[in-house]
Each structure stands twice: as C-alpha cells, then as structure tokens.
C-alpha cells in the first residue's frame, strides 16, 4: 500500500548517492538528521544541502580526522552511521535504516515496514532569495500569459517580470509587478488563477537562475492584438513566438 505512493528512488533512505552542496532529497534529510543527532547540525532539517549542512559536515570531517571537503561520499556515510548508532529515522520509524534494509533484504514483511512513510511535503528547492510561493506566483503569471508559447518564450516572459523588479519605472516586488493594474492581461481577466503546469515553473526557475532570452527587456506585446501605440514605439529587441520583446 504505502509503496505505491512512492517513487522507487526513495525506498532506501541512505543511498550510495554522493551528496554535495545544493543536493536535495531524502538522503540529505537523513544526513541532516544524523548530524543533528550528534550535535553537529543545528539548523532546520529540510532535505536541502545548504551552507549550514556544509559547515557542520566539514566540522564532522575535521573531528573524525577525515579529508575536509564538505562532500558526503560513501566513506563519510559509513563513519556517520557508526557515530549515530542510536539514531531513529523519523521518516521510516526504524533505527539505522540502511543497515536494517541490508539485513532484512530477504524478509519481505519487515522490509516493507522499513520503507519511508510518505513525507507531508516533497522537497522542493528554491533559488536563493526566492520562496516557493514567489515561484508559484510567477509561474501562475507566466502560465496565464504565455502557456501556448514555446518554452523559451515562457522563460522570456518570466525574465521580463524579473527585469521589471530592478527597473526604476516599476514596483520592486514580484507581487507589485504582477498585480499592477493593467500590466498583464492574464491578471486582468483572471487567467492568472489557473493552475500552472511544470513547464511554466521550470521556465521561472531558469529565468531566476539567470537565463534571459530578452537581454533586459521590460515590455512585450502581441503585434496581432496590441492596441497600444506607445508600446510599439519602444526599442524592439527580438521576436519569440507570438510576442515582440522591447525595452
């Protein structure tokens, strides 16, 4: 039963995966929990290998006479497991889940019990400086405005929203830019409230991470439907799908 909810990769909590800064997943969660268990990690267990995890891992490596590189490979995991014998995995409810999994391989029944219970929330990484809600709001706007456009056109719309944030002629917050009356048709006609697909979300993350097909544009319009003469006179940079992007 429980199994069917889960993607295969999450079955064994501590996998052979090498973890480094930026990694996400159940593995990272267990790493953080184990480091916390013996007092090296003091932050929030969120499954995202951030700076806090990095420094505490380095301290652990230093204490245990290992090479201090902040990367959790197989050797480190072995040492960490030994150092945290009494650790109880909160996700699986079992002690030392990896060791148990190995010894219970043949025992179907107990193996099932050691499967992690599905977590309340999937681990979603957000680019620094942005929350998952910011990304959701932007994805809503991008989806409402440009869901019929090619992927790159959606990245471009997301980039325009971000470029407006740093422009002196626009509000300085994501919500301010998106909900400015008349700024986006999708906001005016309520299409912003549609549920966005993953494509729009990915486009937003690409734009936040620095991809800007428009090289700094703050306006765009559809030449077939745009009624505003003023916008047509702005310096045009490029055409992507149905939209012309301009500064």
């Amino acid at each position, binding site marked *: 039963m429980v199994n069917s909810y889960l993607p295969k990769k999450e079955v064994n909590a501590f996998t052979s995966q090498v973890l480094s800064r930026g990694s996400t997943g159940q593995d990272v969660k267990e790493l953080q929990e184990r480091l916390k268990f013996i007092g090296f990690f003091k932050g929030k267990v969120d499954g995202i290998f951030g*700076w806090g995890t990095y420094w505490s891992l380095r301290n652990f490596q230093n204490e245990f006479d290992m090479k201090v590189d902040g990367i959790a490979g197989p050797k480190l995991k072995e040492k960490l497991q030994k150092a945290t014998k009494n650790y109880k995995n909160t996700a699986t409810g079992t002690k030392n889940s990896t060791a148990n999994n190995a010894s219970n391989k043949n025992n179907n029944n107990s193996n099932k019990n050691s499967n992690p219970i599905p977590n309340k929330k999937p681990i979603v990484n957000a680019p620094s400086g942005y929350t998952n809600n910011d990304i959701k709001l932007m994805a809503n706007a991008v989806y409402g405005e440009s869901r019929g456009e090619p992927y790159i056109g959606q990245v471009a719309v997301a980039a325009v929203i971000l470029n407006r944030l740093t422009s*002196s002629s626009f509000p300085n917050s994501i919500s301010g830019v998106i909900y400015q*009356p008349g700024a986006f048709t999708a906001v005016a006609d309520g299409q912003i409230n549609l549920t966005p697909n993953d494509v729009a979300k990915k486009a937003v*993350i690409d734009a936040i991470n620095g991809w800007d*097909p428009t*090289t*700094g544009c703050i306006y765009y319009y559809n030449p077939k439907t745009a009624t505003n003469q003023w916008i047509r006179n*702005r310096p*045009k940079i490029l055409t992507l799908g149905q939209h012309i992007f301009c500064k």
Partner: protein
Amino acid sequence: MRNGIIIGALCAALAGTGYWGYTQHKNLQNTHVQAENNYQRAFNELAYDIDLLHDKIGSTLAMNSRTSLSPELADVWRISIESKSNIAQLPLKFLPFDKTQAFLTNVGNFSYRTAIRDLEKEPLTEQEYSTLKGIYKKAESVQNGLRGVQTDIMNKNLSWMEVETMSAQRKAPRDNVIMNGFKHVEQTKATTDSDFGPTFSNGQEESKGLKKLTGKKINESEAIKIAKSFISIKNSKDIAVNKSLNGSAEPFFSISMEHKRPTASSYMEITETGGYPLFFITTRDISSQKISLDDASKKGKKYLDSKKYTDMELYDSSQYDTIGVFQFVKTVNKVRIYPEAIQLKVALDNGQVIGLNAKNYVTSNHVRTIPKPKLSMDQARKKINRNVKVQEERLAILLSDFNKEVLCYEFLGTLGNDTYDIFINAMNGREEKVKKL
C-alpha cells in the same frame, strides 16, 4: 381557473427573476463602487504624497545642519517610495508614466544615500545641492499636474473605472480628461539620470543589456555551426535562424532546433559580432536521477574546458529535482572575477549539459590588470563584524551597485546558523556588500 394558476405561477417567476436581476445588479454596482473607491484613494494619496515631497525638499534647501537635514531626507525617501506604491495601484496601462516613476525612484535613491551619510564629515556638495534644486523644480511641476487632474476629477465627477474600461476596449478613443492630465505630467521636462550626478546610474538595469563587442561578424550558417558545437544533443532538424530586431545594442542570432532520439528541442542566442554564445537551453524529458550533483559538476567543468572557457571555478550548485544548476566564475591568479560568471544546467540522468548562460561572461570578459590591494588580508578581516566566524577568505572582483568593478577581499563566514558572504574593498576598507546566503 387553470389559466389563473398559470398566470400566478408566471407572475411569481417574473418577480423572482426580477429580484434576482436586481440583486445581481446591486452586487455589480457594489463591486464597481469599491473598485472606484480604491482607485480614488490611491490617486488622492499620490497627489498628497507629491505635495508633501515637494514641501520637504523645499525645506531641505534651506537647511544646513545634519540634525535637521538627515531626518528630512529620510522622510523624502519614505514618501517617494510610498508615492510609487500608489502609482502601482492605478490602472495606467495605456498611459506612459514610466519617466515620472523613474524620477520618483531616483529621488528615493538620492535622498536615501544622502540621509544615511554622515553629513557632518561629508556635507552636501555643490553638485548635490543643485540636484536637490532640480528635484524641487520637477516635483513642483508633477505636483501642479496632479493637482490639476484632481480638481478635474472632483469638479466633473470623473471616474477611474472609465479609464480602466477604456483600456480594456480595443478601439475606444483614448480621449479622457484623466489620461490627458497624466500625459501632461509625464511630458513636463523630464529629469534625466544625469541630473543626479555622475555616480548616479541604475547599474542593475545597465548590466542586463548587451554591450558593444568587437570581432569579426558571422553569418547565419556560421551561427548554426557554432550552435551545433555547443548543444550537446546531435541529430538536429528543423533548424530556424532569426536575427534580433534593431533595438538591440548588439545584434544577435537566435537559433532554434528540434532533435530526434531523444526527442528534445534547443534554443540558442549568439552575437553577430565575434560569434559569442550568449546562452542555450535544451528541453527534454529527464526521468530519474542517476548521477550525483558532484559528478554532474565535474561533467560541467569538463564541458567548459572543452569549449575553451578556461580557469572557470565552481562556486555554487543547486539541485532542482533531476536538474543540477551550477555557477562557475573566472579565476585569475586565485582572484575570482564575479562579473565573468557562467551558469550551466546539467541533466542528472546522464550528465549531459542542457543549458549554458554566458551572457555576463560575454559582456564582462576582457584582459584586465588586477590592481595591487592597498589593504592586507589581516587589515580587511578586522573590518568585519567580530561575531562573524570567518571560514573562507580570498580576493575577488565584484560588480558594485554602480556597475563598476571593485577589488575586494571576500570572506565567507558564519554567525549562528547563517552563512554570510562579506566583501571588503581592498583599496579603502569599505564594506562593499554583505549578503546572507
């Protein structure tokens, strides 16, 4: 008798429909009134803000001591931000009002920077004083314009909802008293950035565009060749090349292509001058993670080396489900050149590079002489907050808020559970930037 029943029923139905229609109408009217009230509030507050702004700048002109100047300038800063937020609530879609908004942003930045400065040690310069005078004049004309619109709205009972519906209609005449009033405000002799002094430009905005490049011009087929060499998936078909429109500071080609086995599509932009790749993105399905983020970063580094981006150092990595995103930065003699950054996207199923972003690299890459720092590392370290525990330190070149490159000592330190990136100017010891990571 039967007719009577039918007539009675119909009458009841009619009355019911009538009542329903009436409540609907009433609800709609309520919503309209509420929306109109919101617009009116935002507009009247804006007019009041500009009044206040004008008065406060006026009094700063006559002030001389720090104790009175600094608080007044801080107030100017607050009011300019507030007025911008009120503008953002008005339905100005078809009204170019960007110059006035830029003016208010600049007033805010200028007053903020002067308000936080120690005016005892560094009093207002002649230039800054004349900037203040310029702001005062411009604020007066904005104030007069808005007051005019306000009078019109009050005397003629004009509604903002009309402006809003007008912008929703496609072919409506754009003749409206409110709109004309705003256009008039916008057209008053625009205060340009240069009025705010030489150090005053919006570096962030500037750094986003392309700069003039040097090199041989390439043609379409050369652009396709470059694109094919950068994009990891071979097997391309349906290749389309477009050129940027004439508003771009530097023309570029955009190349899009489809792939078979695996099914994917790619898009790339390459400058015409020099044929420098700006970026590319490949989109394809990535089922499950097979390689670690660490291995993916090594593949990314190898890719950069093979594309002749030498001396690139990984400084940040993050995982988004089955995609790794890596930040690389140029390192010359152990000095990190942050403006010359490259981002890579690597698929975590097979380690293929599915995205490159070299726009900043292209606009900042040049042969540079790194000056000798005037401060030593130890001297710089003493400048940082002593509660911060330094973990890593190095020299780095940073792009300042004014879009200028500055040589800094970079300290990576921890305080409590947080990590900070601190930049101390290597020439004068100024704390250029402190960023919580």
